[in-house]
């Protein structure tokens, strides 16, 4: 066994240890990222999905928000809308399902900052949505920047506030 083989084996072992560390000892930033990616997956839907499954997924999303959560979103061609509390968010999600046949929401480029107290976090991200409307010419693709504020409650992270960030100034 020569030095070269030992070096390779050490590198493979170190890589494996680093990978295992990511699985067994998740950092708070990784937990926040997984939560948000799960929310994006659960908000998305397709025409094959049944109503029961859809409602169950929306309930899952709602449970990721704090009871006093607020959303302030400015959508192109739609205007600004504000939502406060889980009920209003749930109604908005149900309304989106009624209005569109398909929605694919994805979060990209997450910049996660865990505050020093370890109980609050802020995430800057880009969201893309690809929607297929129920009528003609209602399909659309949109990309927007968002700021998410999260709070840690009983060991888990919950979304407290979502606001759009204007990429271009007026």
């Amino acid at each position, binding site marked *: 066994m020569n030095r070269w083989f030992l070096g390779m084996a050490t590198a493979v072992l170190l890589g494996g240890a680093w990978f295992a560390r990511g699985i067994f000892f998740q950092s708070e930033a990784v937990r926040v990222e997984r939560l948000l990616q799960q929310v994006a997956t659960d908000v998305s839907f397709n025409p094959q999905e049944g109503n029961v499954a859809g409602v169950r997924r929306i309930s899952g999303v709602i449970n990721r928000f704090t009871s006093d959560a607020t959303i302030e979103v400015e959508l192109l061609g739609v205007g600004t809308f504000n939502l406060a509390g889980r009920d209003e968010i749930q109604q908005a999600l149900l309304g989106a399902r009624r209005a569109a046949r398909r929605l694919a929401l994805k979060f990209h480029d997450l910049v996660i900052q865990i505050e020093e107290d370890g109980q609050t976090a802020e995430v800057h991200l*880009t969201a893309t949505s690809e929607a297929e409307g129920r009528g003609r010419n209602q399909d659309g693709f949109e990309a927007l920047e968002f700021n998410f504020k999260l709070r840690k409650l009983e060991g888990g992270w919950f979304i407290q506030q979502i606001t759009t960030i204007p990429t271009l100034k007026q």
Partner: protein
Amino acid sequence: MNSSELAVPVPWWRVAAVGRNPRVTAVRLGVLVLLTFLAFRYLFVPIRVTGISMSPGYKDGERRWISPILFWWRGLDRGDVVAIQMSGRQVMYLKRVIGLPGERIRIAKGDVLVDGEPLSEPYLLNRSPAWNWPTNGADRILGPDEYFVVGDNRAMPLENHYFGVADRKRILGKVVR
């Protein structure tokens, strides 16, 4: 019997995997990885166009290249198409630079006015006379690091078209092809 007669030949699979001299191969590999990283980060960044806001020149699904280094080296000219960063590099806006720092900009009935003069825009297929900006009727004076950017598809309804003023620090580079 001298030492060269005792030398064990290197197995073919090891030569195929790491070369005759592993140290040289490692250095070559490192240089290649570094050069590839630098090239795709600063020289030419590949992008795929999504949406119709830059049609007819840039079609949905087309692949293009952005050059950050050309932007840093030569700056921006009116008419350049630039990529504007959002929270990172995975998703960016692609827009055309219409107004440069310090200029007065207004869109009146679909015509862009720069310092009060109408701008010739040969890249447009058509424009909607319903486009008026800013909505308060006054000119927008650009700051020292501000660029006015807008898409080429001005036939779109104004309210469905995302455009405005971009800070220099948000611009990643300009389209080179």
